[in-house]
């Protein structure tokens, strides 16, 4: 084989892979489109055939397995479920490596093939977010309690729990028979339920569930769950089928290119099980309540002065902390699960815009709470789009400015204390403060005489309606996006920072809390009210020097080991009447790179802060990010450190800027 021929094949391959990817992506949204399925099959077949002809036997063997599955999809034996498409995309991504003869040290290819073989063997691949079409055979169960069931002590919640234990999913309540309030009979249960059950559930098992209750129940063992009462497929958190339906372990399950595939099976030792996300949510809720009760118990024990009770309470505190940590770890999902789609996005955009970009990812294994991960996808898509669309220059522009032809976009994720830092960095043209300032003025976001540092100017891009793009592309530039990004990140109790150097690139850093449910808190008191500060952001606590007790006109600063730290008087901030005691403390908190001191009357102690969201009515209260319930049952507000630090900086920025100039 000559190099020429090989080059021809590679060129053909590139086109085929493009077509294949397009087909697979389309198939995701139109899984029953036979035209698409045929096209995907044809592409695969051609890759295999040409590959074998040009001597790429490893490639041909690999594709063969892949093609066999699609043949069955084409024949209608296997539906083109999300799992197949995901595996197929992962397999597709392996093809260039196979052609180049790259080794596969971590067995990715074998894992993909193993998963494909499972599907072929008719082994149901449990699917999160399944479109049901691809799900395993399911049975349908409907039931309704008859007679005065509730008066007799029947508990539908217990029944549902038992059914869930058998693997019931997609449980839907039928409330059509619920009468008006005036005719509601508290003794009868007017709600019926329907659900999908794994096919393996026997009649006897169901009889056992309904042993003690008068219920009409219908078990339809073969019907596919496509009825109108099945929930909409876009249901954000559908309960994935449980372990009972999980496929048997595969021989090789090392890091698979498509992570959900790995998650969807028990590992080789059977040490991993799948659990519906809603159960984890339920567990987290229970743990939250437990932590609140535990705080109450500790308080009662302390008051009682009973050593035995105090010892027990302390043991419970330890256990609750362990339980909390385990539960939170169970909810952690690696960033990897997000990154796959970004690779494709970057690739597509770079192709579309003619800007060659290399996308590198660092820290894919960094884990975050699943709720955070879910909400992070859209903001990161926006930021990446902006980076390529606005940040990146074309190859020609790059060459003109002496940069390499290919731009670099780096997504990195790393833990920093109780926070996760996610950074999108590019080596593009950078942001021009003068241009942003002019735009912001033109759009009426700032006044002509507003004095702003570059860092402050950069944050203007997060203002609603801001856009520097001179033309609106289909990708970005409509001025929606970055403000939404900021809102989303803030709703996750995170913060955003932009750094940029003209001509050198931009980096956007997201700081996110590890978890949204329970945090370690520092309880403080201001004018008789208690507040909680996230312990992770507390740096140190110092005494307020006597000469600083009166506010200074030039702004309040503390000298912390030679560095000036601005501080805020919470009493003044919260408009508290009365005088503080003689000894006030200053809690130094940090957000991002910046520190600010908070003057408080008293430090109460640490506590487990179970975060409760504030109502919509409090959305405009910026200094507070949530509330928590204390051991004595009272409510303490959780202070929003990022916002307070921002206030501290805003109040002192002119002075700080002046000092910088002087220095």
């Amino acid at each position, binding site marked *: 084989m000559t190099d020429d021929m090989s080059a021809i094949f590679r060129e053909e391959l590139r086109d085929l892979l493009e077509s294949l990817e397009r087909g697979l992506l389309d198939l995701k949204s139109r899984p029953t489109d036979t035209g698409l399925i045929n096209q995907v099959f044809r592409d695969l077949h051609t890759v295999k055939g040409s590959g074998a002809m040009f001597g790429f036997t490893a490639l041909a063997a690999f594709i063969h397995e892949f093609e066999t599955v699609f043949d069955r999809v084409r024949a209608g034996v296997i539906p083109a479920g999300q799992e197949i498409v995901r595996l197929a995309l992962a397999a597709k991504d392996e093809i260039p490596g196979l052609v180049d003869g790259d080794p596969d040290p971590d067995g990715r290819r074998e894992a993909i093939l193993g998963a494909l073989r499972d599907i072929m063997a008719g082994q149901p691949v449990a699917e999160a977010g399944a479109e049901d079409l691809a799900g395993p055979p399911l049975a349908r169960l409907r039931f309704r309690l008859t007679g005065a069931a509730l*008066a*007799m*002590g*029947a508990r539908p919640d*217990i029944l549902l729990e038992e059914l869930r234990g058998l693997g019931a999913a997609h449980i839907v309540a039928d409330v059509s028979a619920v009468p008006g309030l005036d005719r509601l009979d508290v003794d009868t249960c007017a709600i019926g339920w329907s659900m999908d059950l794994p096919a393996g559930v026997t009649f006897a098992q169901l009889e056992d569930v309904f042993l*003690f209750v008068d219920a009409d129940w219908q078990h339809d063992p073969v019907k596919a769950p496509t009825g109108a009462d099945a929930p909409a497929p876009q249901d954000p958190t559908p309960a994935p089928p449980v372990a009972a339906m999980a496929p048997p372990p595969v021989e090789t399950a090392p890091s698979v290119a498509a992570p959900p595939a790995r998650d969807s099976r028990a590992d080789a030792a059977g040490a991993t099980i799948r659990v519906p996300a809603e159960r984890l949510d339920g567990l987290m809720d229970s743990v939250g309540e437990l932590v609140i009760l535990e705080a109450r118990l500790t308080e009662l024990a302390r008051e009682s002065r009973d050593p035995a009770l105090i010892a027990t309470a302390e043991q419970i505190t330890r256990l609750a902390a362990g339980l909390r940590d385990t539960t939170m770890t169970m909810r952690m999902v690696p960033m990897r699960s997000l990154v796959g789609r970004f690779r494709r996005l970057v690739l597509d955009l770079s192709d579309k815009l003619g800007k060659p970009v290399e996308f590198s990812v660092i820290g894919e294994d960094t884990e975050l709470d699943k709720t955070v991960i879910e909400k992070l996808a859209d903001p990161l898509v926006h930021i990446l789009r902006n980076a390529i669309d606005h940040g990146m220059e074309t190859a020609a522009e790059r060459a003109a400015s002496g940069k390499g032809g290919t731009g670099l976009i780096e997504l990195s994720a790393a833990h920093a204390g109780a926070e996760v830092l996610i950074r999108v960095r590019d080596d593009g043209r950078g942001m021009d403060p003068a241009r942003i300032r002019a735009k912001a003025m033109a759009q009426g976001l700032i006044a002509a005489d507003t004095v702003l540092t570059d860092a402050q100017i950069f944050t203007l891009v997060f203002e609603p309606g801001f856009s520097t793009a001179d033309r609106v592309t289909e990708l970005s530039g409509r001025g929606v996006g970055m403000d939404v990004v900021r809102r989303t990140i803030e709703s996750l109790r995170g913060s955003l920072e932009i750094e940029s150097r003209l001509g050198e690139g931009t980096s956007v850093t997201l700081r996110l809390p590890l978890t949204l449910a329970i945090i370690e808190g520092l309880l403080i008191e201001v004018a008789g009210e208690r507040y909680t500060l996230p312990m992770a952001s507390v740096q140190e606590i110092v005494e307020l020097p006597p000469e600083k007790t009166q506010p200074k006109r030039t702004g309040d600063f503390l000298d912390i080991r030679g560095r000036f730290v601005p501080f805020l008087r919470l009493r003044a901030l919260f408009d508290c009447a009365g005088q503080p005691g003689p000894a006030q403390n200053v809690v130094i908190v940090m957000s991002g790179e910046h520190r600010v001191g908070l003057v408080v009357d008293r430090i109460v102690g640490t506590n487990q802060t179970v975060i409760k969201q504030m109502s919509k009515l409090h959305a405009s209260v910026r200094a507070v990010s949530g509330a928590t319930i204390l051991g004595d049952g009272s409510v303490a507000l959780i202070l929003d450190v990022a916002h307070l630090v921002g206030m501290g900086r805003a109040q002192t920025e002119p002075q700080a800027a002046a000092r910088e100039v002087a220095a």
Partner: protein
Amino acid sequence: MQKTVLTVDDSPSIRRMVALTLEEAGYTVIEAVDGQDGLKKALSQPVDAIITDQNMPNLDGLGFIRALRQNPAGKGVPIVVLSTDSEDVLKAQAREAGALGWMVKPFTQDKLLAVIRKVLG
């Protein structure tokens, strides 16, 4: 929170066996010696479940259940009937009276716990 189970039986040994089994599993158990006593105890304090014998002096199991269900405070409490025979007629009568479940004597401690967990969750 600890759940309270009322056991109504004229046989002290059965009552003790029920009480020991359930207490070991973390339930609080109240005992009553017959239907009359059971009615008094079930209505004077909150109970989460009741296990009652059928054949008892003064007021039998079915009578006890009917009387209890007529009282608004006695609605909604799951009641399990103990019987020595598994005749469907008795089961039907018990259901009619307002019992949720039944258990045939003799029973093992495991079976008792399983039944209580089934009705109490």
